[in-house]
């Protein structure tokens, strides 16, 4: 994995949302959704981005596909800056980068049949003719585990279960044979046994098509089982990054440990508790501080509350942003 060339590089990306306090007019209050976020995803790997809601996971994915624009920083795909891409280049980029959204109940157009849904990207990109499109749609549906595909072509989303809908969304994303796939919490709306099948399917896509993937999740268990490398994001900053086994089996950052503590642990006998989460939050200091300072049990006075920790290398491929290390 180390020798592979980076496919996607986000460097020092900042995204600020302005919040309107009252019904009328805007106030000066703003939220930093992403704060100097830097991520490198290598060709062929599945990179897991883990964090709680509001940590900026989804914002990162929206910036990559160009649904929103970053306030500063660079996002490069195959060495090319994706911000401000127009015309042909933009089209070539969107063909290579596809996204699967969280909620298959909302991401599919209820008025379009499954064939129309999966065929739409082909029409937009002017790929093939009627015959070859039908063939491609069928292939994509079977790849996504909907077989026989002919049985699904004429159906509508409301006739499908949640798991089947998510498979349609995956087929739609895969029909253009993209190089890079973003899966934004693809199983959070699904039952446990169905989620497992979707994980299997994503893994299968990587094995058979060599798709590179950004897998966004709040579940460390999902990341552990599917991803090669995992980045933990907190309040828009990456706090820890490493291989899946480093990050999850030998976590360093107190926030990663807190996430692990929160995971239901009945099944695993070797579970140990880290207890890094402070029950009552500290007041936030006005100066720059570690984003996790208010909730960190082992925060140090005059260190964690007065400056922001930088990303430090603590092992092969393993980085952490914490003053404790």
């Amino acid at each position: 994995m180390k020798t592979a060339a980076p496919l996607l590089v986000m460097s020092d990306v900042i995204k600020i949302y302005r919040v309107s306090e009252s019904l009328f007019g805007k106030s000066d209050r703003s939220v930093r959704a992403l704060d100097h976020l830097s991520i490198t995803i290598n060709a062929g790997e599945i990179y897991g981005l883990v964090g709680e809601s509001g940590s900026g996971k989804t914002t990162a994915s929206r910036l990559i596909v160009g649904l929103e624009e970053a306030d500063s920083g660079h996002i490069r795909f195959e060495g090319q800056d994706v911000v401000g891409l127009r015309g042909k280049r933009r089209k070539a980029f969107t063909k290579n980068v596809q996204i699967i959204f969280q909620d298959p109940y909302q991401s599919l157009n209820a008025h379009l049949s499954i064939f129309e849904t999966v065929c739409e990207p082909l029409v937009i990109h002017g790929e093939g003719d009627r015959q070859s499109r039908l063939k491609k749609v069928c292939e994509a549906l079977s790849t996504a585990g909907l077989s026989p595909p002919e049985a699904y072509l004429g159906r509508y989303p409301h006739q499908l279960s949640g798991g089947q809908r998510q498979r349609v969304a995956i087929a739609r994303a895969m029909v253009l044979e993209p190089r890079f796939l973003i899966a934004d919490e693809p199983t959070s709306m699904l039952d446990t046994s169905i989620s497992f099948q979707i994980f299997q399917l994503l893994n299968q896509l990587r094995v058979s098509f060599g798709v590179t993937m950004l897998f966004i999740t709040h579940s460390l268990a999902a990341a552990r089982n599917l991803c090669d490398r995992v980045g933990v994001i907190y309040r828009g900053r990456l706090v820890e990054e490493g291989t899946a086994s480093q990050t999850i089996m030998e976590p360093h950052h107190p926030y990663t440990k807190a996430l692990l503590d929160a995971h239901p642990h009945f099944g695993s006998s070797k579970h140990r508790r880290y207890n890094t989460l402070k029950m009552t939050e500290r007041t936030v200091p006005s100066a720059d501080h570690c984003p996790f300072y208010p909730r960190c049990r082992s925060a140090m006075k005059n260190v964690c509350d007065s400056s922001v920790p930088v990303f430090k290398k603590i092992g092969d491929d393993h980085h952490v942003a914490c003053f404790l290390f």
Partner: protein
Amino acid sequence: MHTAVQRVSFRLERERSLGLVGESGCGKTTIGMALMGLLPPSAQVLSGSVLFEGEDLISASDARMREIRWSEISMIFQAAMNALNPVHRVQDQIAEAIITHEPSLSSHAVAHRTRALFELVKIPQSRLKDYPHQFSGGMRQRVIIAMALACNPSLIIADEPTTALDVIVQDQILKSIATFQKETKIGMIFISHDIAVVADVCTDIGVMYGGSLVELGRTEDVFHCPAHPYTRLLVGSLLTLSDEPADLSRVSCEIDPTATGESFVGCPFNELCADAFPACKKGEAGWIELSKSHWVRCLLARKGGGE
């Protein structure tokens, strides 16, 4: 007519908690609503009985049910955002529940109890006068829990109380539910689709498939020695934080939770079960006792042991 739930029997002792797990659409919530007497008008309880402290709730009058609801059996609803009234202060909403059921209580006593409830669910007293929108999702769910406990019920039904919440918040809410359940010694029915969550919180687990209860027992027994093929599938599809990642390439069967037909004969899982044999299509498996605290409804268990 569609049969949502059938062949469900269980008993819950005081101080114990039963977790009902199953796919969405398997009838978990229907059971909860039937216990509360809150089934929609289109639904009907055709047969069976629900005995609560010896009293049959199915045949109870509406007036009697209204008395029992909340003061004896209360419920924690799934979507905390929608269960609170946005235009009333949370303290007034909790007080309303208390006053409705105990009109004789003085306003001082009501205020005292509201404060005690907030303490139990660990919300600072300073937030009593806040409105729902000023709380985070987790805090709102705590308010809902406080409200469910308002009249000292002896049974609480929690319907997916943490589904919409984040991992860390979910963990905190589950801990607070487990704590109050132990401290107040009330019975609890915990409905969830996540068997890992149920195993963390409950003393017993009931596994549902296609509207029937298929396995029932102590949490340790069901979780560690699942006997029904569906339970095995559920436990097997749990992703854990183990040293070795799970083998994602192994084959698993396709679940269709809506596959419950009309009043079916045979085992509801037989179409998907890898080990099904002809008798599964015809015969209805009765409860088979695997141990003093573990029962399963599967013909295979009779054939030759649970494992």
